[in-house]
């Protein structure tokens, strides 16, 4: 997204401790143009093309942050960074706690998630639930350019490690972005659209699908309140609870796998803190629990779409 590039460009100008690590993020400007033009401005030390060694450069980023720099790791697809989970879970996530806060860990780990483009199973994962399970990590999964910019800037100014995941199918999306130097704090959901009949929580690309579903349902007089958590760690369930208090019905939509996923966590919190408010069972709509297939018709069948979201909302209203 152009928006995150703006945030990164501005923050790199402000803070000389920021540098970017990744494959092809130098002269090439990033596989997804995430660093386009920065190499020319900041040179090879601050835009450092890495060999193909995800574990290595993530571990290096950890040490660089311990020594006072602010590394941005641009790992292209989240699938690739699975090779570095040891460094992320055992080291990056723990250093601040283990050092009693004497060391900081301002590492930004960013890359793409999501099904699309027939990218097949090694280029289409969405693993935010894994990161959100681990204490010490913050996980942002924006759904639009303005949020992406505000959240990225916030990430680049905090002390904590942040996993920043953008859906590949959102990279080309345009949208209004406020001017100036502002951030979006983590852990605050956005009410994308107010409504009164049912609460839908959707993340990342699913927000767009849900918006389309809402528009279709609105014509029939069905009023959906749509909530975008924006960050899954910390996760703002208070906003969801407030909405459920109005609507009594809750659907969670996330492209990532369902088991031990976003829907599970939100549903569990609501079942603990808002059980009395519920007029119907909590529903979850997730991507199929299977590797993402290549063939376009198969691929289209594994991720939620505007249509399946719409159907899930209807089903929930009938419960």
């Amino acid at each position, binding site marked *: 997204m152009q928006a995150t590039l703006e945030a990164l460009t501005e923050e790199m100008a402000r803070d000389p401790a920021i540098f970017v690590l990744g*494959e*092809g993020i130098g*002269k*090439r400007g990033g*596989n997804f143009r995430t660093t386009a033009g920065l190499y020319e401005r900041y040179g090879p030390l601050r835009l450092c*093309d*890495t*060999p*193909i*060694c995800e*574990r*290595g450069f993530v571990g290096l980023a950890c040490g660089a942050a311990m020594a006072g720099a602010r590394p941005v790791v641009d790992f292209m697809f989240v*699938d*690739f960074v699975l*090779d570095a989970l040891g460094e992320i879970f055992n080291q990056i996530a723990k250093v601040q706690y283990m050092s009693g806060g004497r060391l900081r860990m301002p590492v930004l780990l960013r890359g793409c998630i999501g099904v699309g*483009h*027939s*990218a*097949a*199973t*090694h*280029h289409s994962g969405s693993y935010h639930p894994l990161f959100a399970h681990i204490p010490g990590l913050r996980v942002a999964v924006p759904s639009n350019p303005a949020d992406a910019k505000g959240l990225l800037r916030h990430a680049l100014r905090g002390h904590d490690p942040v996993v920043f995941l953008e859906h590949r199918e959102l990279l080309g999306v345009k949208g209004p972005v406020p001017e100036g130097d502002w951030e979006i704090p983590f852990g605050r959901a956005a009410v994308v659209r107010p409504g009164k009949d049912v609460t839908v929580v959707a993340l990342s690309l699913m927000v767009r699908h849900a918006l389309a579903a809402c528009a279709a349902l609105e014509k029939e007089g069905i009023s959906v309140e749509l909530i975008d958590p924006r960050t899954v760690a910390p996760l703002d369930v208070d906003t969801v609870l407030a909405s459920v208090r109005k609507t009594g019905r809750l659907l969670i939509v996330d492209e990532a796998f369902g088991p031990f996923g976003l829907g599970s966590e939100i549903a569990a919190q609501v079942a603990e803190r808002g059980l009395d408010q519920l007029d119907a069972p909590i529903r979850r709509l997730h991507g199929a629990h299977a*590797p993402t*297939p*290549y*063939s*376009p*018709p*198969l691929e289209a069948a594994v991720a939620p779409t505007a249509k399946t979201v719409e159907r899930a909302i209807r089903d929930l209203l009938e419960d």
Partner: protein
Amino acid sequence: MNGRDSSRALDLYRRMLLIRRCEEQLARGHQRGLIHGACHTYVGQEAVAAGVCAQLGAEDVVFSTHRGHGHALAKGVPPRELFAELLGRATGCSRGRGGSMHLFAPEVGLMGTSGIVGPCILQAAGAAYTFKLRADGRVAVAFFGDGAVNNGAFHEGLNMASIWKLPVVFVCENNQFATEVPFSYSAGNPDVASRGAAYGLPGVAVDGNDVLAVDVAAEEAVRRAREGGGPTLLECRTYRTRPHSEGMPDFTYRTREEVEEWKARCPLARLRVKLLEGGTPRNWRRSRRKSRGPSRTPRSSPRKVPGPTRPPRPRTSTRSRGSCPRRPSAPLARSRSCRPPSRR
């Protein structure tokens, strides 16, 4: 070249030609939007897959990467199944689930290609472990790019294979770039073959555009593996003459001249010259005829690429039937006993 040598050379030529023709077709299919996702062709590197796989029997196995069409074809995956896979059909070798980067055909020893750089090295070592456990004389091969050399999988895989003397051959196709990053930038020591020493195993560098040289080096490596001598690191120095992936820009990180230079070293053309120098062997014509399916189609018409993609279903379209023979006419995966005695 004597008769045996030239018939062997023809076999190698046929394998290379099959790959080249298929890749050209697939590239066109990608341009026409029939093939989706990323499509990394093997054009320019054919000698490596052809030379190495010619040394393998049907029972031997191969693990490969995102750039795996050539290995699949050389190991005996029917072109029709490769095409069907990239077209997203249920008749594809991975049932349409994999596409270009995830080819599976264990029935011919293509154990899998992967969209992640590195794992094939470990998996080949693993298959070799099984073969050693069973003492069944089979050999595993990992094909991987120069980019994988800097990855921990290379280090861990080669070391384990060395200490356990596993029957595996590590074939590094050093085409000098990982996407757009030159190997000379990303490797502290860009001489891949010399890195065998770090693991106490033999490292051999070979001209990867000379299929006969690859053939000889692979023979030695495969024999060593089969006889219990352990793994070999085989660096094949080569070049891809098409972009990293179809549709990507190509002259930002390398020059048109460099590409042209390497095109002039085309492994097919080089072997053709040698073959012709040695006189036209008896079976030369026949061999061309046999592989005519894939070889003629692109010339006759690009529209011969099989029709628009549709949901995977049991049958491929009729139109594709003629252009892709179900199996290459010559058995691509020769059994060991077919090896020319002169080579033993």
